[in-house]
């Protein structure tokens, strides 16, 4: 159900405005309304938007700067956040928090300078080493390729050489360079090349030292990269430079490891404090950024917002205790349609239903004042799932897997909720498995094929129907049953639509939904004769009249859209045939698994192969069973049923509170 909300206005003297904001943030129950738009629309200019004073703006800027610095420091120290308990971080948070912003800023600055003193030097050394390693790793393969080329000219003092790196796809340019440098040096040059990797080619231009300047000038005009060694290596012979590079590359990781050990101590000492400081800064900035949402006159500030009705008294008490008569809280009556629309929504459901609120990850909350349909979803979603999968063995596995996921991931809301929904779906799967007598496909049916209970059923052709319902044989029966379930499901949606209309006092809405429901009932009555031949003709006549009357009603209430909707309703019922269609696909696949395994049966090898095939195919079927029926069950709710009545909320209830940081 939707939590009952109260709209409040808090008015107080401006001297205590920031303290009031702190008190409200501490309570963490008020969803603040942004008054700026309302103030702009006001004719009287006595009330203005609350502005942040110069001092507060300076604090805000300082806090934002500190947030960046603290964030950078946390990234540098790379703490394992999973190791810290929320309780410990909260303790540090409370130790850092100060209501006085100036004091708070100075505490965080002190903490930062203390951390920097201990970490800045090792961090810089580590960054230098990492950069050098990256640079040497870039040179090493090039030098390895160039080295044999250089050795060819090493003996001659007259010859000079320049190493180049060229993208492999432009390798053809080497011919052009060879030709042009040949012209510059009167043929006293040579270009040798070797591929470094898939993308680059190393080349060495060897030429008479006399032409050094001209060749350099020529190469500077071409779009080629000259390999420039670090200055300390550039003057060394390539052999020595190579050895030096290798020796340095071997040494650097050990150096980085040593620095990391030094830093680990600092990480352990300061990480939690830094995370708490980041959280404090986040909450403080949130509080300051809330100010422009408030209103003010010369003397007083005005805060408007919503909170759950039951929290009004505690807020009133806290404000009275802290500020006496300088701050007043008034509850505003929310009756107007516009106010209802603006009211933020939060849900309060019983534990069983609460897990099914996962559906609101796909859609918005229902509008304030309407019916929360989570209970419909909680009943029908797992039931549809079970109806489609319907297998005792599969149900047991899905229920266990769902429950394990639910328990293991209690800190991950999405997986926790899905796990719960799957385990309830698994329970329904077992129930329908018993009705279909399916246990890993047709294993039980094969064992008890002669066992059937005959039950009377509304005078159908044989006046009885058999239990268990073998889905493949009883396809037509199941098709009708699924469509009737669909009729029930859609009708519940339309009844909720009527209730919403009554709550919102919207007569047209009520007439439209009642008309659509009437036409739906009429269609079902009219075609029931085709299924139950014994039905008297007057049922069909009443059905047709009801259908026409319903359509007219839907037209009066909802215009052309209402008429179309009342006709489409019949199509929506047919959509529920997917409940048997997907179920059939599942049962046929299970039977195929059993048949293939059965064909292999015989001898130790045959039994092992049969078991292997059956395990693989049934596992695959269970995985498919977890996804496909869930999606189709979801779709039947979101499109066919909820589409008949659901009105989304404009805002979700997001109380202004100390969040404990950015997570």
């Amino acid at each position, binding site marked *: 159900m939707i939590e009952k909300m109260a709209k409040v206005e808090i008015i107080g003297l401006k001297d205590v405005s920031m303290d009031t904001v702190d008190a409200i943030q501490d309570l963490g129950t008020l969803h603040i309304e942004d008054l700026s738009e309302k103030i702009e629309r006001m004719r009287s200019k006595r009330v203005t938007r609350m502005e942040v004073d110069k001092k507060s703006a300076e604090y805000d800027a300082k806090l934002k700067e500190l947030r960046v610095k603290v964030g950078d420091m946390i990234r540098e120290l790379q703490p394992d956040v999973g190791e810290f308990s929320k309780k410990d971080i909260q303790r540090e948070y409370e130790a850092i928090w100060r209501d006085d912003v100036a004091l708070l800023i100075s505490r965080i600055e002190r903490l930062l300078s203390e951390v920097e003193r201990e970490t800045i030097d090792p961090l810089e050394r580590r960054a230098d080493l990492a950069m050098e390693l990256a640079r040497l790793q870039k040179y090493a393969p090039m030098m390895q390729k160039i080295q044999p080329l250089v050795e060819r000219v090493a003996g001659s003092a007259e010859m000079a050489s320049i190493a180049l790196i060229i993208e492999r796809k432009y390798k053809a340019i080497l011919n052009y360079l060879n030709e042009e440098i040949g012209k510059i040096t009167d043929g006293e040059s040579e270009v040798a090349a070797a591929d470094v990797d898939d993308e680059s080619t190393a080349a060495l231009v060897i030429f008479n030292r006399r032409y050094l300047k001209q060749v350099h000038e020529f190469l500077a005009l071409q779009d080629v990269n000259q390999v420039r060694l670090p200055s300390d290596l550039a003057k060394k012979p390539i052999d020595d430079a190579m050895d030096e590079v290798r020796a340095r590359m071997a040494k650097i990781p050990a150096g980085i490891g040593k620095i990391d050990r030094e830093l680990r101590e600092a990480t352990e000492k300061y990480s939690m404090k830094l995370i708490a400081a980041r959280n404090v800064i986040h909450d403080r900035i949130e509080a300051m950024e809330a100010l422009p949402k408030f209103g003010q006159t010369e003397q007083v500030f005005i805060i408007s917002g919503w909170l759950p009705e039951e929290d009004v008294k505690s807020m009133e008490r806290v404000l009275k205790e802290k500020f006496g008569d300088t701050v007043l809280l008034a509850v505003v009556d929310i009756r107007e349609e516009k106010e209802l629309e603006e009211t933020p929504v939060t849900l309060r459901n019983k534990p069983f239903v609460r897990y099914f609120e996962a559906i609101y*990850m*796909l859609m918005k909350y229902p509008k304030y004042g309407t019916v929360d349909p989570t209970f419909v979803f909680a009943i029908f979603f797992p039931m549809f799932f079970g109806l489609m999968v319907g297998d005792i063995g599969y149900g047991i596995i899905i229920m266990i897997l769902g429950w394990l996921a639910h328990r293991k991931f209690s800190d991950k809301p999405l997986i926790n909720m899905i796990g719960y929904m799957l385990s309830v779906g698994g329970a329904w799967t077992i129930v329908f498995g018993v009705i279909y007598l399916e246990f890993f496909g047709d294993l039980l049916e094969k064992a008890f094929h002669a066992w059937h209970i005959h039950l009377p059923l509304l005078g159908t052709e044989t006046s009885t129907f058999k239990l268990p319902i073998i889905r493949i044989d009883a396809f037509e029966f199941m098709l009708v049953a699924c469509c009737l379930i669909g009729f029930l499901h859609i009708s519940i949606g339309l009844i909720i639509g009527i209730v919403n209309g009554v709550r919102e006092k919207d007569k047209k809405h009520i007439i439209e939904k009642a008309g659509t429901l009437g036409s739906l009932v009429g269609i079902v009555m009219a075609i029931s004769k085709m299924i139950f031949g014994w039905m008297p003709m007057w049922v069909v006549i009443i059905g047709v009249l009801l259908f026409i009357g319903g359509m007219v009603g839907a037209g009066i209430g909802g215009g052309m859209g209402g008429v179309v909707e009342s006709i489409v309703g019949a199509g929506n019922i047919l959509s529920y045939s997917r409940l048997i269609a997907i179920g059939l696909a599942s049962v046929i696949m299970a039977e195929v698994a059993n048949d293939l395994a059965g064909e292999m049966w015989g001898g130790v090898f045959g039994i092992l192969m049969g078991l292997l095939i059956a395990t693989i195919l049934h596992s695959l079927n269970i995985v498919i069973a977890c996804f496909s029926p869930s999606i189709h069950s*979801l779709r039947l709710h979101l499109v066919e049923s909820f589409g008949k009545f659901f009105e989304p909320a404009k805002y979700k209830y997001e109380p202004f509170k100390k969040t404990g940081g950015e997570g």
Partner: protein
Amino acid sequence: MEEAVRIGLIAFSAAIAICVPALATAWAQSRIGAAMAGAVAERPELAGSAIIMVAIPETMVILGLVIAFMITTLKGT
């Protein structure tokens, strides 16, 4: 011989009943899937809706399967 032709035609009709909607569903899903992949890349919070959107055209092939199954039951008539 006549019976064989009759069963063959029934089987062929059932095959068409499932085949055409399956192709139509595949085409629709390819278009919706590509569009939703683009939408999810821009707004990851749409991932849930994307799954539902992609599942919407499956109604065609599911109804096709139902019709095909009903056609196969004509064998005995």
